[in-house]
């Protein structure tokens, strides 16, 4: 299949979401409530202090918006897509079609993500920006570097969701895997609590695990909490993790594919 058809999958996914308008409004409202809750929690935690561990409250508000709705996107759609396809054997249909299943998934879900950005994240960010206030990037360098970090973050989360989805092939349930991934995310990704508020040994440990590249590092880079050298260095480590995880997914996919073909689907 021609490479040009993959963007079409993204567009189709984007369009398909417009049909569920109530879902869009409800998600936007739910996200808005939860971001204001996080801001309230942080405000209460700071309890009037100008800064804690060198972090100001406005920085934390910006961190909350970046690490939550933007970077920690709704990955369960990917997980169930892959999980259901391999568990029921429907994936065999994709193997028959002249297309590359991983590329198909990637383009479809980037379409879904683009939709969520436009319909949910941007409006929520605008509302937060006008009511509470959001900070610009710490510098031009940090602003520009946010984009490669964002890409790495998105791909790592996508790959992790695929990985858990693929495991459903052996465990026969995607449900538990979603919750395992959720457990990992809430502690290690920095979406609930940034690494700089953790006790040093934990912060050091979590800082090397790939999950920190999902929420913590991109947001920290945006806020200028990493100097130029550290920014480049951690981008390198992020890419390394991305490569390792991609290799793991491809290996697992090859195994599942082999089993599917041998068993006849």
């Amino acid at each position, binding site marked *: 299949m021609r490479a040009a058809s993959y963007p079409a999958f993204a567009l189709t996914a984007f369009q398909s979401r417009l049909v569920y308008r109530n879902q869009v409004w409800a998600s936007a*409202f739910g*996200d808005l409530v*939860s971001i204001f*809750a996080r801001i*309230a*929690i942080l405000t209460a935690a700071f309890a009037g202090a100008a800064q804690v561990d060198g972090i100001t409250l406005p920085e934390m508000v910006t961190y909350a918006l970046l690490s939550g709705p933007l970077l920690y996107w709704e990955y369960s759609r990917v997980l169930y897509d892959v999980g259901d396809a391999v568990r029921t054997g429907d994936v065999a249909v994709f193997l028959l079609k002249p297309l590359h299943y991983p590329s198909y998934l990637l383009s479809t879900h980037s379409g879904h993500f683009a939709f969520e950005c436009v319909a949910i994240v941007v409006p929520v960010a605008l509302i937060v920006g006008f009511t509470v206030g959001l900070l610009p990037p710490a510098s031009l360098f940090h602003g520009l570097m946010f984009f490669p970090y964002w890409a790495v973050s998105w791909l790592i989360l996508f790959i992790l969701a695929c990985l858990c989805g693929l495991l459903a092939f052996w465990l026969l349930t995607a449900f*538990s*895997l979603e919750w395992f991934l959720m457990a990992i995310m809430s*502690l290690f990704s920095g979406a609930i609590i940034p690494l700089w*508020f953790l006790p040093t040994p934990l912060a050091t440990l979590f800082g090397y695990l790939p999950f920190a590249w999902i929420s913590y590092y991109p947001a920290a880079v945006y806020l200028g909490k990493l100097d130029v050298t550290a920014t480049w260095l951690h981008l390198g480590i992020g890419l390394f993790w991305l490569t390792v995880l991609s290799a793991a997914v491809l290996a697992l996919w090859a195994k599942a594919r082999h089993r599917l073909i041998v068993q006849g689907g």
Partner: protein
Amino acid sequence: MSRSLAVVPHLVRMYVRTRLEYRGAMLLAWFAQALSYAATYTAIALLLLRFGNLGGWTWSEMALLLSFHLLAYSLGASLSFTQFRDIEEKVRLGTLDAVLIKPVSPWVYLVFSGLNIGYAGHIILAVGLMAWAVTEVAVDWSILTALYFVAGLLSAAMVTAAIMTMIGATALVWVRSKHLFSIFFGFWELARYPLNIFPVPLQILMLTIAPLGFLAFVPVAVTLGRPVPLLGDWAALTSLLAGPLAVTLGALHWRHCIQNYQGAGG
């Protein structure tokens, strides 16, 4: 109604047997869900470790709040969440019709033919955390406070089941209502923190049309003797009335929606 209630144990037995056909997956899910909540609570504990307190609440008080939140929610949701989340699909596929042609209350049939034993993981975690927290917090436990605590828990579970019923019932008329659960869980997440840290409009919302303030904060604050914003001295009474009131409204709404059921059309 008496026939409906007589059917309950038989429905539950059928559903449990169905779930036991896949007991491996069920045990794994219990574990995964408990782990996920434990991870979130750990993150909250770490936040409190750094900041000392949240809106005046210490970690042990927060632990009581979190465990109450999880336990009340699980008790209510086991009666309602999956049952009423899936009602939208039942309407679309027409399987709800098969429930409506039975000579028993459709609510009883739906709730108990899906009484979700999948919440066991939640409940075990919540009870464990609560057992630790009740001994840690500065409360002089008496028969009266203990009774209030249990009654508050039941009332909170009723609030959960009633809201879920109302959301599910809406699907009977609108065909779609799943999206309303996103809103529910937005407020549900707020409900695990002290209400006093939120802006006043949100507090009002949480004590009125989205009454999840009663899911944990109000009864736990009353038990701990902490001030409850807006309600003040009325907190104890309202927290006990919230459940029965929500159930009444839920029942009326359910009845109204059953009367106006349109099927999937065509």
